């Protein structure tokens, strides 16, 4: 199953779920009405059940349904709103502590490195990582979309797993991020909460009635008990639905982890260690109950049953490692990683990438598309390893990350560069300009792909800014971008990725609708998109036309359009078009990305600007593009 199919499936799963929950809610309403009817018939013993119902005015049933439905709706909406903060809100509610990007703790450093490699390998910006102070082996991913996703890891995971196993666990979590499972998870949490809340109210009525002396006391007690039964009964069935969905996605994520890391030993060994660990993957925090389906391993020591959110460990291990002897691994503390020595994984990643040619062949174009939503770990490790030491440490430091971004925006033209540097000296935050001057010579030497990789690495550092620091930072970035009175393609991509990531973090996570099921309606937008890509890296106008045609013919539209040469890169029109294309269904995004890639590669090479454009388009449309293994030229 590829990325787009997984996305589609996640979407239809969400619909099924909503349907199931509506059904559950309806049965709740019927139960509530029945309950009232029974209460009434007890109060009027002289009439039988049918007579009581006939005598009760019909509005009563309406109001009861309205009341119960209203409570569930209000509770769900409240929960959803509290989750609007996205992944970090969930991590914070579980008591997670943000691991700073410049941490000196070798364990935490190793974890951040593993997460970073995996993110770059998947073509995503690096998500913030939270540490949960629990001794069991577990982890989770939470968020609405890729730009507000966070990863949470238990202390026990760090203490007991080695680098390879950690990589398996992190890859599993990235699969949840990429396949749209997180969004299902958050909706599930909100809906379940609404139903559970009925039970909570029932409980508080019961407690309240202890102090009440009024005549209505009996009624309140009965109502409380009724609500308790409905609420907890509803939660029971809700949990079964939740668990069924979750179990399926876990198998999928395990499989994806093998695909991402190209190895089944890491994740299989991690699972074996959970089995051998005295506390396994249990989480003590009571808040974790609601988000049990987000974790790597089951948070309660349940055996296999309807309520367990995870398939039994034995089954998961067997699926990964058919030759498994059935014995769990003993857990012992791992030797602390040394922060300086390069890992063996890095070395092997290196040897894997030496054979790539710079010439792109037709055959590998389909590979390129298949790679969307996948991960290219070896390539990512090589990219990180080849980066300049100074630039890497700047990307990992909240203070210097801003200088790095400013330096990337300084133009090669000396006149404009002078102007921009003056602007930095005058407006940038105290202490930042010297860093810009220091980083600039190195930044000018690296190519766009490396710059974009560094940008993705700097994202979690920038997310550590405070709100006012973030405002100032974006103000200066925008000034630097327009300093030369125009926006070029690299500036556009940089701005696009920064906005998507930081706006999602500081203001509100963005969500894609994803309901447009016809490309035809968006023909003008597609025309603009392909025209820009065709013109970006090809000089000859004849070749531009044929590149455009090659992409356009792949789109399932019966209209013919011809390439139109654009005078300049009109970023506003381009953004507008992408904003509309965002709402396409995942499978249509697949043909769109396919067309983009074919247009870019029509002349046999991938130009730097074309690579950057596709990267920016992918980021905007939530189709992350991993490192390609070809050097854009």
């Amino acid at each position, binding site marked *: 199953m590829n990325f787009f199919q997984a996305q589609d499936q996640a979407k239809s799963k969400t619909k099924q779920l909503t349907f199931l929950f509506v059904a559950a809610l309806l049965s709740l309403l019927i139960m509530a009405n029945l309950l009232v009817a029974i209460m009434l018939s007890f109060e009027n013993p002289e009439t039988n059940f049918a007579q009581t119902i006939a005598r009760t005015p019909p509005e009563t049933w309406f109001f009861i349904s309205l*009341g119960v439905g209203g409570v569930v709706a209000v509770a769900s909406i409240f929960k959803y709103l509290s989750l609007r903060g996205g992944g970090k809100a969930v991590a914070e509610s579980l008591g997670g502590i943000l691991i700073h990007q410049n941490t000196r703790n070798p364990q935490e450093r190793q974890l951040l490195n593993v997460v970073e490699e995996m993110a770059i390998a998947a073509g995503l910006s690096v998500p913030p990582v939270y540490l949960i102070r629990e001794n069991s082996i577990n982890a989770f991913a939470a968020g609405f979309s890729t730009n507000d996703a966070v990863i949470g890891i238990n202390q026990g995971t760090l203490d007991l797993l080695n680098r390879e196993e950690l990589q398996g666990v992190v890859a599993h979590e990235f699969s949840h991020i990429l396949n749209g499972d997180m969004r299902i998870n958050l909706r599930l949490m909100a809906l379940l909460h609404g139903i559970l809340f009925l039970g909570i109210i029932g409980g508080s009525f019961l407690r309240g009635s202890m102090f009440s002396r009024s005549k209505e006391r009996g009624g309140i007690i009965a109502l409380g008990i009724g609500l308790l039964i409905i609420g907890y009964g509803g939660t029971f069935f809700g949990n079964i639905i939740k668990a069924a969905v979750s179990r399926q996605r876990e198998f999928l994520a395990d499989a994806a982890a093998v695909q991402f890391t190209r190895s089944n030993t890491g994740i299989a060994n991690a699972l074996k260690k959970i089995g051998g660990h005295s506390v396994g993957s249990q989480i003590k925090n009571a808040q974790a109950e609601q988000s049990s389906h987000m974790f790597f391993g089951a948070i309660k020591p349940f055996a296999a049953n309807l309520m367990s959110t995870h398939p039994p460990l034995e089954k998961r291990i067997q699926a990964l490692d058919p030759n498994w002897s059935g014995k769990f691994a003993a857990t012992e503390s791992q030797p602390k990683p040394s922060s300086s020595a390069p890992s063996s994984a890095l070395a092997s990643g290196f040897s894997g990438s030496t054979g790539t040619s710079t010439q792109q062949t037709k055959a590998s174009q389909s590979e390129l598309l298949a790679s969307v939503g996948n991960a290219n770990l070896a390539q990512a490790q090589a990219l990180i390893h080849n980066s300049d030491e100074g630039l890497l440490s700047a990307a990992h430091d909240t203070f210097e990350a801003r200088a790095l971004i400013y330096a990337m925006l300084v133009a090669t033209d000396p006149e404009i560069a002078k102007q921009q540097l003056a602007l930095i000296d005058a407006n940038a935050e105290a202490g930042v300009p010297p860093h810009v001057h220091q980083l600039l010579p190195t930044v000018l030497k690296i190519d766009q792909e490396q710059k974009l990789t560094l940008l993705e690495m700097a994202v979690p550092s920038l997310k550590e800014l405070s709100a006012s620091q973030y405002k100032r930072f974006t103000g200066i970035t925008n000034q630097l971008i327009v300093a030369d009175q125009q926006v070029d393609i690299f500036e556009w991509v940089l701005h696009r990725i920064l906005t998507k990531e930081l706006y999602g973090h500081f203001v509100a996570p963005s969500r894609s609708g994803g309901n447009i099921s016809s490309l035809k309606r968006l023909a003008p937008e597609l025309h603009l998109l392909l025209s820009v890509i065709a013109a970006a890296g090809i000089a000859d106008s004849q070749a531009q036309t044929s590149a455009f045609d090659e992409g356009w013919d792949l789109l399932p539209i019966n209209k013919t359009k011809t390439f139109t040469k654009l005078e300049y890169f009109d970023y506003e029109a381009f953004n507008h078009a992408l904003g509309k294309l965002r709402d396409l269904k995942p499978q249509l995004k697949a043909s769109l990305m396919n067309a983009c890639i074919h247009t870019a590669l029509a002349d046999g090479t991938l130009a730097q600007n074309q690579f950057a454009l596709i990267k920016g388009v992918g980021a905007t449309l939530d189709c992350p593009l991993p490192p390609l293994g070809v050097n854009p030229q």
Partner: protein
Amino acid sequence: MEMIILLVIVAVLAFWLVAIYNKLVALKNRQENGFSQIEVQLKRRYDLIPNLVETAKAYMAHERETLESVINARNDASAGLAAAAGDPSNGAAIQQLAGAEGILGSAMSRLNVVMEAYPDLKANQNMMQLTEELTSTENKVAFSRQAFNDQVTEYNTYRSSFPPVMVAATFGHPSDAQLLEFEDSAAIQAAPKISF
């Protein structure tokens, strides 16, 4: 009917309270997280200062008093940091750290003034490197302190805004968090007077 209205009111009220409670906890956590960022930078600073003093010693044997006052102030500030890091929501600890930092700041600027008289020391490669790193660390301290103070302000503002203020104390948030203010600008201005 009254029952249903009551039910919905109870639901909304309970949720509202839960939302306030969660927001207070989240803001407080974020603020404590912000402090750990300052802690990293301040520790770095406290690690650099003894090296600097060690290098300076070789050149300025007659300034033992100045050097000692720097080391003492550094040790006090380091202890203050340890106390504050244990509980960043403790206003008194934060204030004590701010005071110790102020004393350290003025001791450092006194040292800088004294160093003017030793051109050899200022030209020392090691010294130049240390001074450079110290300046950069101080910038970082200022930066993470700004972020921390932003978070404290956000927490305080929310805590004392209208609906939360009624319940904040009951929920375990009885008082405003303490801003971390170093009186470094005042200390630097005062320093030359002491040395003459």
